[in-house]
């Protein structure tokens, strides 16, 4: 018995140390990005155009480009994701086809993002003649975040308490009326969760857009759908490779901190919404 106790204590301590080490490593990374990035950030850095290939000036247009791309991607992806989720929960009766859908979406979620870039460029950029442009990037990212949005929406709809549906049915609502007045309003937190996660995923993506939606210098804002846009992600990518220029690397860290803060904010918002959703569905 005493031996058991000792063994249990040792294992417990070991596991606790492993957990602490995991958390410590992640916090060190956060500390590094913050420590290296914060000195580069001031009002001018956030509100000025970059100059000298990004080594001086600010990141105003890169930030705007990232926001434009991720916003556009969600606008395109949202109706498709919502429709797909509702098709499965409201209209589709066959369990086999439901299963097929689920596995296809899981596959789409696992596809390495660089492949979205390659294939997306050939399909949108070349076949639809959108070229290296903001629009190509938006379409590629929209496909990429589709499963993120769709899975979130579907979970939210499936978590709806049965009594809401029963009440709708008792009122004799048709499926479409049920969707409009019961399902969408009641699963709003889930929809917002999905949108925030999708935005975060699009904001953090580099590989899929680096040769399809951006050029590295000389662009400010896209003036039409067919212009390329600068982004924070590709800005960091270029600056990171100029290891000999300390000014450029400092700016890369500054842009990195801005990008990391953006994704953290979005994910934290999503976590908050998801906990609200849980509370609602348990009520």
């Amino acid at each position, binding site marked *: 018995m005493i031996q058991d106790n000792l063994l249990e204590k040792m294992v417990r301590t070991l596991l606790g140390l*492993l957990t602490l080490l995991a958390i410590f490593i992640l916090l060190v990374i956060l500390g590094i990005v913050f420590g290296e990035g914060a000195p580069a950030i001031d009002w001018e850095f956030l509100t000025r155009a970059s100059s000298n290939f990004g080594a001086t000036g600010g990141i105003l247009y890169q930030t705007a480009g990232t926001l434009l791309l991720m916003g556009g991607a969600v606008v395109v992806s949202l109706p498709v994701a919502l429709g797909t989720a509702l098709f499965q929960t409201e209209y589709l009766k066959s369990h086999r086809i439901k299963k097929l859908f689920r596995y296809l979406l899981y596959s789409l979620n*696992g596809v390495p993002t660089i492949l979205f870039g*390659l294939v997306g460029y050939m399909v949108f950029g070349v076949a639809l003649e959108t070229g290296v442009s903001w629009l190509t990037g938006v379409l590629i990212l929209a496909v990429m975040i589709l499963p993120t949005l769709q899975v979130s929406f579907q979970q939210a709809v499936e978590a709806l308490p049965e009594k809401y549906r029963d009440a709708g049915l008792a009122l004799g609502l048709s499926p479409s009326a049920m969707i409009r007045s019961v399902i969408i309003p009641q699963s709003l937190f889930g929809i917002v969760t999905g949108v925030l996660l999708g935005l975060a995923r699009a904001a953090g993506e580099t590989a899929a857009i680096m040769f399809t939606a951006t050029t590295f210098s000389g662009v400010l804002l896209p003036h039409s759908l067919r212009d390329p846009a600068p982004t924070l992600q590709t800005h960091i990518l270029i600056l990171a490779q100029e290891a000999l220029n300390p000014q450029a690397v400092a700016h890369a860290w500054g842009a990195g901190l801005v990008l990391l803060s953006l994704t953290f904010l979005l994910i934290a918002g999503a976590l908050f919404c998801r906990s609200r959703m849980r509370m609602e569905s348990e009520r």
Partner: protein
Amino acid sequence: MIGHFKFGGEKGLQMSRVFQWDLFRMGAFFTALISLGCVTGLFAFLVVQSVPILAQQKWNFLLGQDWWAGEVYGALPMIYGSLMVTGLALFLALPLALGGAVYTSEFLPAKRRLGVKALMELFAGVPGIIYGLLGVALLSGWVKDSFGLIDGNTILTAGLLLGIMILPTILTLSEDALNAVPGQYRDASLSLGLTKLQMITGAVIPEALPGIAGAIFLGMGRAMGETIAVMLVIGGLDKIADPWYDLFAPAQSIASKLGREAAEAIGTDLQWSALMALGLVLFLLVMFFTLMGHLLLKRAR
């Protein structure tokens, strides 16, 4: 039988609704088709575009060790690179991720547990380019100095970065699997007089094993598909190290090869086709891991 008759009327009503294609149904159906088209289209596209290179090189594409754009295309060094960095990342991440998962699920009070989970989910979303920047600006220099190398861009550097990258994902997903083990399993073991440790190793972990394996497979898929972070620190040499287990050698993964060469290959015939075939290999590898992961995770639930 009674039930059958009772619901007969309702069923008739539903039958008439099947043909009532209102706007919502059409919209939902159409968008669902788009979603299906995305996956199948992507796969079909990769297959069709890899035909030219596979027709020309046959099995030599997979087994060839040389890649000279314009002359010969052999994918083996890239497949080797992908497997090496993914394997190394798993080796480094697993002790922390699994130890952390068991501790978080079994020993931490509910509030702290949620804190750890939230932290892991935040970090699972850190953009790859941030890890890339860390790798270029700090880690590769650190690897170079601590091991006395000429160049810090090695398999080890890429594996280290990827290990940190997939750690939060594997931790939080395996924790889900452990935490989903029903309370009655725990109660039954404790009532048999087992200690908590015996309960964990004898009842909780075996029950959660498919889910833990699923989490690991998903982490593998993510590591193998990561492009930016790996591309910046792996060294970019299309060669199998000599000896093959030399972690201090530069290499190339499939994803990093695609990231580096895609821009210059656009518009070429054979080189583009070779990249697409590489993409197909990556797609199939990652798909295998991802679907295995989901299958096992689902079984755990």
